[in-house]
């Protein structure tokens, strides 16, 4: 570790940096056995003002500075170039890979510019994922439902004990209601689910609170995932968050070198969440597992996507059927499979 490379040091001051290299890529967590949904990421933000104990940035960032790319027009050029090159594909592009999509919006105004740009792009949606309640700057944007405003959600207990400096659950829900009322599509990410004594009752309460705010026909997607980290990060969590109980549960290491709750626990957690979601919102919303094995999809949801291309197609197809104004073209499954690694 060299001087000032400690990831927490850079969080205190926002820096604007010039556009350098390509910023749009496939989600970094992609792996052969633990399925990724082939979402694309726009690395417009690096590091995060929040301080979640489970955050992978602790172990990932080599540059700890809190940075936002200042040349949004160049980011937009890159996006346009890439989505135009594959007109058959329905792109999902998120700005949350290395930071929070909305936490810095009052200072940067970047999300607003991106929302307005995406409203005119035929074959893509923007995903802004946040743990903040900063939505006022985007409420009046012309979005055409081409932006999905998503929340990373957890129980009150986990927000209070592990998601330091983030907006409270209640404030996130208030912000979510504003976004719903502004006509946006919403994404709900119950990831990472964390196992603790009262997890079941608390997560069911959480779903109930979300159900009161978001109607089924405005849900773009819902993801479920559980706590996972590599062994080095376990040490960092224990060192950086001394009171945290995150690492004390029963976990095993998978072939992607990440430890997760032992499989029977994950199955129990996901099944209860999935069934409750279907009970609340019905069969329509697209629910997916984040970074889970193929067989888990089968066990939890009775579907068997066998490749990231197939999963990518599933999203495009879902949008074409449920939000035909957002994805106007009928997706071609063969192309999604053939070009799944692009």
């Amino acid at each position, binding site marked *: 570790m060299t001087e000032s490379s400690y990831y927490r040091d850079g969080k205190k001051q926002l820096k604007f940096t010039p556009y350098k290299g390509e910023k749009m890529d496939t989600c970094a967590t992609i792996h052969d056995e633990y399925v990724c949904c082939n979402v694309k990421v726009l690395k417009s933000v690096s590091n995060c003002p929040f301080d979640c104990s489970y955050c992978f940035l602790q172990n990932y960032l080599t540059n700890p500075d809190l940075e936002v790319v200042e040349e949004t027009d160049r980011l937009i050029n890159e996006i346009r170039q890439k989505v135009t090159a594959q007109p058959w594909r329905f792109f999902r592009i998120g700005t949350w890979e290395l930071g929070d999509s909305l936490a810095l919006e009052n200072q940067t105004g970047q999300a607003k510019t991106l929302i307005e740009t995406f409203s005119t792009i035929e074959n893509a949606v923007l995903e802004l994922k946040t743990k903040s309640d900063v939505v006022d700057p985007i409420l009046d944007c012309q979005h055409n439902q081409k932006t999905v405003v998503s929340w990373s959600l957890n129980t009150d207990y986990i927000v209070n004990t592990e998601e330091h400096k983030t907006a409270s659950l209640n404030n996130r829900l208030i912000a979510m209601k504003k976004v719903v009322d502004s006509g946006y599509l919403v994404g709900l990410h119950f990831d990472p689910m964390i196992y603790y004594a009262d997890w079941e009752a608390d997560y069911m309460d959480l779903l109930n609170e979300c159900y009161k705010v978001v109607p089924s026909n405005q849900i773009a997607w819902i993801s479920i995932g559980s706590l996972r980290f590599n062994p080095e990060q376990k040490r960092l969590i224990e*060192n950086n968050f001394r009171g945290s109980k995150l690492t004390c549960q029963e976990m095993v290491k998978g072939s992607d070198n990440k430890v997760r709750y032992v499989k029977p626990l994950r199955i129990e957690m996901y099944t209860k969440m999935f069934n409750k979601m279907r009970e609340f919102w019905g069969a329509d919303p697209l629910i997916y597992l984040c970074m889970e094995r193929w067989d888990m999809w089968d066990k939890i949801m009775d579907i068997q996507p066998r490749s990231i291309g197939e999963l990518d197609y599933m999203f495009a197809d879902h949008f074409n059927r449920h939000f035909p104004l957002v994805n106007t073209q009928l997706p071609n499954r063969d192309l999604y499979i053939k070009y799944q690694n692009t």
Partner: protein
Amino acid sequence: MCNQAHIDYFNDQFLSWKFDSCNKTLLDSININGILTPILTIAVNNQYVIVDGRQRLLVAKSLGLKSVPYSVIEPDLTTSDLIKSLHSSDLDKSTIYKLRYLKHFNIPLDNNSLSKLGLPYYSHIKKDVDRILDLSDDAQRFLHDKSFSLKEMVNLLHYSPAAFDRLLADDAYFHFTKRTFDESLSIITALIKRHSFGLDDLLTQTNYLNLIDQSITPQQRQKKWLDDIRSMASPVLRQTQQSIDSIIAEMALPAVVTYDRTLENTGVSIQANFTSVDDINLLVTSLSDDSVQQQIKQVMELT
């Protein structure tokens, strides 16, 4: 130039950051030959302050020698640089020595000083170093003897302090290695947090106290206890493995049936060695049996 002086004439203030150690070879040698290499000193305020040879002096004292040979040097270095230069071999081998040396000479914990000793710099290193040096001398000695790195020591600090002290005090019964000490503490701390146990309850439940009373070697004791706490830390995995193992045992297939014991990879692996067509037929017949297929399905559901 070598002189002789009374043994009480020397001050070891510059080397008190080092641990006393009983070196039998040195003791035997001094007992027979006396001190062959003079103690190295510098003169400070009319006193001879040792910069090298503290161990020789301690041994000489323990043997009741009245006087020892010494040399006085007048170096162009600062005292801390002189000590670092003369003790670089010990400093290179022990992170605890590096930290004790830095503290002893009030050297600031900045990037420059730390990098000279091969230590990393980060913004809160002072806090970590203070916490390490607040540990008892016994604990620091243990970390020194087991050659813990700074990162490894910082990791230990985040485990249960009560468990740390207890395992340290009982090391003679277990002979922990660096790895097993860390693993034991990691598991115990997790169990304490997971179940809100007190340390004594946990030690009772994991058979720790009984093991201490048993007439077995420290290595056997360590292995048994680690098995017990690993098992206690993974109840769901162990229970599922037992269920699968019993289903596989019931199958009675003429083949070796295995599965991923972490349960992450679903399915079973069936491995058979055929030496005749009859062997093939036997396996095929067994696999065609409805109850065997049902059992394989059960295993697949559990993995």
